[in-house]
C-alpha cells in the first residue's frame, strides 16, 4: 500500500515536470502503434472485447516504456496480425495497407528511438524534432516509392511474386549482412 502511494506520488511529480514535446513524441508512438494494429489486424479481432484491450496495451506500451523491448513486440504483433488477416482470413494484399503498415511501423520505431533518449522533462529544441521527423519522412517516402514500384512490377509479372520476393529478399539480406559486419568490425 505504501509502495503504491509512493508510486502515485512519483507519477504525479513526473506529470508536473513533463514538457510538451517529449509527451507529444510518446503520444505519437502510441498513435502509430494503434493505427498500425487497426490497419493490420482483422476487423473481427479488433472488434472483439477479448483481444481489443490486449492489442491496445501492446500498442501503447512502447510509449510508456520506450527503452524496453515493447517496440519490437508491438511491431511483431502488427505483422502477426497482418499475416493472420491475409493468410487466415484471406484478405487481399492492398497497396494502401502495405504502405500504411510499413510507414507506421518505421515511424513507431524511430519515434521510440527518440523517446528512449529524450527525457520527459527536457526543454526541447524544435530544430531537433524537426530534423528527426524530416529524416524519418525521407525514409518513409523512399520506401513508399519502392513499395509502389515493386508491387506494380509484381502485378505486371503476374504470378512471379514468389520469385520477386526471393530476389529482393536475398538482396536485402546481403545488405543487412554487410551492415552487421561493418558494425561488428567497428565494435
Amino acid at each position, binding site marked *: 500500500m505504501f509502495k503504491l502511494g509512493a508510486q502515485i506520488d512519483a507519477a504525479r511529480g513526473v506529470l508536473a515536470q513533463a*514538457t510538451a514535446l*517529449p509527451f507529444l513524441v510518446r503520444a505519437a508512438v502510441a498513435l502509430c502503434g494503434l493505427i498500425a494494429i487497426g490497419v493490420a489486424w482483422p476487423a473481427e479481432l479488433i472488434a472483439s472485447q477479448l483481444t481489443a484491450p490486449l492489442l491496445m496495451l501492446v500498442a501503447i506500451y512502447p510509449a510508456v516504456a520506450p*527503452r524496453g*523491448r515493447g*517496440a*519490437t513486440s508491438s*511491431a*511483431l504483433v502488427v*505483422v502477426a496480425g*497482418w*499475416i493472420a488477416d*491475409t*493468410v487466415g482470413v484471406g484478405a487481399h*494484399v492492398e497497396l494502401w495497407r*502495405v504502405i500504411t*503498415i*510499413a510507414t507506421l*511501423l*518505421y515511424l513507431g*520505431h*524511430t519515434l*521510440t*528511438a*527518440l523517446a*528512449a*533518449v529524450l*527525457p520527459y*522533462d*527536457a*526543454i*526541447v*529544441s524544435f*530544430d*531537433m524534432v524537426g*530534423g*528527426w521527423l524530416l*529524416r*524519418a519522412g*525521407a*525514409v518513409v517516402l*523512399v*520506401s513508399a516509392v*519502392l*513499395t509502389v514500384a*515493386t*508491387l506494380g512490377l*509484381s502485378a505486371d509479372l503476374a504470378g512471379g*511474386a514468389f520469385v520477386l*520476393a*526471393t530476389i*529482393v*529478399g536475398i538482396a*536485402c*539480406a546481403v*545488405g*543487412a549482412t554487410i*551492415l552487421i559486419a561493418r*558494425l561488428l568490425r*567497428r*565494435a
Partner: protein
Amino acid sequence: MTDRLSLRTAVPPTAAGGEGEAWAGPAWVPTRALGRAVLLTGLFLLLGVALGRVDLVLMAAPFAIGAAAGLRRMPRSAPELTITADEEHIVEGGHVEAAVTVSNTDVIPYDLVVLRTRTSPWLKLEQADRPFAITVPRDGWYSVQLPGDAMRWGRQPVGPAAARVAACGGLLACRPVVVEARGVRVYPVTEPFNATEAMPAAAGLVGNHRSRRPGEGGELAGVRPFAPGDRLRRIDWRVSLRTRDLHVAATLSDRDAEVVLLLDVLGEIGLSGGVAGSASVLDTTVRASAAIAEHYLQRGDRVSLLEYGAAARRLRPATGRRQYLTVLEWLLDVRPDPVEVDENDYDNVFGIHHLSSDALVMVLTPLVDPRSADMLAQLTQSGRYVVAVDTLPADAKVTGGGNWTPLAGRLWRLERENVLGRLREHGVPVVAWAGAGSLDLVLRDVARLALIPRGR
C-alpha cells in the same frame, strides 16, 4: 603454487590508479533501436522469403533504408563539453551569466544531445534543473545559456555537466561525457559600517589615528619649552610672547593600527535564506567581516583575519585596496569548521601569541560554544583590546519536536545571557551586529580603557 588467473576487473581501472594504459571503451555504442532495426529487417525478410510474400519484404524496406542512411557515416570522436561562467566581480544578489557549450568536431551531425547541468542551490539559473535536448551540426557547436542570480556569497559551482549524444538517427549513442564544475566567485554584500571612534592603540609608523606618543602629527598634545632640535614652525608665538621664553606646540604622532577579525567558525546556526532572506551565523559573520575590513582598510589601517576553527586559517595583516580584495577572496572559503577534539585540548590549537598585543581584536562569534567564551576571556586576560560581535540570529531557536523543546530553548537562552553577562563583567564588550555605527559605543569604551596605563 600455480599462477593466479588473470581476470578482467569488474570496474575499469582509473588512469591515475591503474598501471599501464587506462581503460578506454568505445565512445559510441549501438542503441536498442539499432538492434530492433536489424532484428525486424532480418525477420521480415525471412518471413517474406519463406512465405513468398513480397509485401513482408517491403515492410522491411524502411528499416533497412533508415539503418543504411543513418550508418553511412560513423562518428569517430566524442563530443567536447565546456562550462563558462562569469569571471567578473559578482556580489550577492548580482546577475550571473553561465553557459554550457557542446562542440562537435566529427564529420556527422549530432541528431540529439541531452545536456544536464547541476548547479549550486544558491545560483538561481533559469531552467538549469531541466535537461536540454538540442542538435549540433557537424564541425559546429551549440551553447546553452544559463542566466540567473547569485543568492549567496561563496564559491558557487556551475556543473558538473553531462551530455549524452545520439547520432545516426538514434542508432548509435555516445557514452555520457562529463565535465567538471566551474566555480563562480560570489562576494558578500558589505553592509554599511562606519566607526568614528579612535583606535585603542595605534602602533604603526604612519597612518590616520592619533597615537599616545609625541611626534609629527595633527593632534595637539600640549605646549612645552623650546628644546634643541625643535622646528621653528612649531614655535607657539603667543605663549612665547606671554612667557618671554620660547615655547613650541607639541603634537601626537599619527599612526595606523592593526585590526584583527577573528571569525568563530566552530559551527553554523540558523537557516540561510540568501541575500534576500534570513541570515545564518556565517552569513552575518562574513558580511560583517567584509564591511569592517572595508571600513578600516579605507582608513589606511592594517587588517588581518583569523578563523577560530579546526583549520585556523589566517590572512596576514596588510593595508590598501589589494588587501581588501584578498580579504573578500579569503572570506569565500569560510565554512563551518568544527573541532572534534576535547575542549581542553583545543587551547593548544588556537595560539593567542599569533595576535599582536596592540591590535584591536574583533571577535565575530555566536557565543554558543563554551570554547568561544573561554577564548574571549583568555584574550582579555592577556591584555588584548577585544570587542565581541554577537552574530547569533535574533530568531535562533532550539530545533526539535519534543514537549520539552521550548523549555530547553528558554534554559539555553538564559544560560547564554548568563555567559554574556559574565563576559561583560570581565571587561569584554559584547555587541550585536547591526551595521553602521553599531560598534561606536563599544569602540569608544575600548579606546578609553586603552588610555589606562597597562601593568600587571
